[in-house]
């Protein structure tokens, strides 16, 4: 009961204070809005990039063709080697007869051409899926070392480059967002600092009459949280409407089926939820810092 009353009064005090220091509050709210919008864009981008990357990764395989002269033992030897290699997720053996069947099903023209030949001109193969696409090249070089390998075929760099570019973009975004979070927390902290100063007399009297430390501090903590939450409203609206619009505009994918966007629902609602929570947390960090620094009790 008493705790609830303290909660209510602290909340009331902090709302009053936000309204009373309107220009200052507005500055802090604007700053946290900007930060959270950038954060939202970064989160939406990076989640989509992750999605695209993992789609790409699924497509990326090393196809190893075994020489016509390759024996059963040699194929077993290669399989054993693949079992030992750390970066191998799985592999699949496909004999030349299976290839032939597959091609026949795929096209009549090829099929008749193949029928025309006496010997099967195709090669036995092993298709390897790797764990980490970044090491695709190293792994394929390793496989190539066997002299019974005719050729090794993989994405030849294009996909890898794309993925590592995404990697760098992600790291840069993290740094920028981190910096913005710090700036926002600082600005909210500064707002709280000024409210603390403007309410010095009130604080002094509260302490003299025997208010607990929590009772003195809580309104300021709440004020920071309120500023952060108000700051997250516009970013939430912008990211929900913005993303749905973009998704509809591209009909869900860009360039090709591999580069698809994440479906807006419930994805964008999670993002919105994260924004409110982050706003509140940033506000709390900022105000706690200010309270600790300027409200020594």
């Amino acid at each position, binding site marked *: *009961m*008493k705790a609830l*009353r*303290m909660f209510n*009064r602290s909340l009331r005090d902090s709302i009053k204070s936000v309204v009373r220091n309107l220009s200052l509050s507005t500055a802090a709210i604007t700053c946290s809005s900007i930060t959270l919008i950038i954060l939202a864009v970064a989160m939406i981008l990076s989640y989509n990039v992750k999605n695209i990357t993992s789609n790409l990764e699924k497509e990326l395989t090393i196809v190893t063709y075994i020489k016509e002269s390759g024996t059963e033992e040699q194929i077993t030897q290669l399989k054993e080697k693949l079992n030992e290699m750390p970066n191998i997720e799985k592999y699949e053996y496909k004999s030349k007869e299976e290839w032939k069947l597959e091609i026949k099903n795929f096209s009549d023209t090829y099929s008749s051409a193949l029928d025309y030949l006496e010997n099967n001109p195709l090669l036995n193969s092993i298709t390897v899926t790797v764990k980490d696409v970044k090491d695709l090249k190293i792994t394929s070089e390793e496989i190539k070392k066997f002299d019974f390998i005719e050729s090794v075929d993989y994405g030849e760099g294009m996909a890898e480059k794309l993925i590592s570019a995404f990697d760098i973009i992600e790291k840069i975004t993290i740094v920028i967002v981190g910096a913005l979070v710090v700036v926002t927390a600082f600005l909210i902290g500064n707002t709280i600092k000024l409210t603390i100063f403007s309410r010095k*007399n*009130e604080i*002094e*009297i*509260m*302490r*003299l*009459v*025997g*208010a*607990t*430390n929590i*009772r003195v501090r809580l309104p300021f903590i709440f004020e920071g949280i309120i500023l952060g939450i108000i700051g997250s409203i516009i970013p939430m609206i912008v990211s929900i409407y913005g993303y749905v619009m973009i998704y509809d505009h591209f009909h869900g994918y860009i360039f090709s089926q591999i580069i698809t966007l994440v479906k807006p629902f419930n994805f964008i609602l999670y993002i919105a939820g994260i924004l409110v929570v982050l706003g509140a947390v940033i506000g709390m960090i900022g105000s706690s810092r200010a309270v600790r620094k300027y409200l020594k*009790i």
Partner: protein
Amino acid sequence: MRLIEVKNCYKVYQNGVTAIADLNVTIDKGEFVFIIGASGSGKSTLIKMLYREEKPTNGSVIVGGINVAKLRNSKVYKLRRKLGIVFQDFKLLPKLTVYENVAFALESIGLNGREIRNKVLKALESVGLKEKIRSFPNQLSGGEQQRACIARAIVNDPKLLICDEPTGNLDPDISKEIVNILKKINEEAGTTIIMATHDREIVNEMQKRVLQIENGVLVRDEQKGSYKVHESTPNV
């Protein structure tokens, strides 16, 4: 019954000034005590130690069973709820009415609305300020402001009322009025009152216990004392 016990108490400020030196005194419940002494003698310092605005450098200060020297910051509120404090400069909040100023104290310690209303009205009545509850501090005379301040100090029925020069800013007539209110509180509620003052007329008229401090040392502790200037110090 003993309310305050100060034992071998020293207070040395950061800048090296010794404001209180080896002070020993005990005060019982229900007493009315004046603290007198020249300016800078250490009256306010002694008073500040009673409500833990300052900590003794050495020795002990025990108020209502709480050892102030050992009291942690987070527990200071427990001491403060047992006492009321009145200052020379009132410290009323200018944007709140008289009623709100007094209620503010109770809100700060978490009482509910009904309790607050009853107590505030009772306190304002006992200082004779009931007709002014909707006035703001700047609409009141000095004496009325000090009465509001006293109401705020006694609103939670403290055992101890500490006053640091409560009449320092007031005319002699108004000062008497204020001291009479304190006397009434002392007599009717049994509240222990400690009052630092320079007002010789009041001290002489009241005939209460007098503690005289000079240069941080307690030089006189007299029941039914009067305002005398200590031989070793120049006149105040």
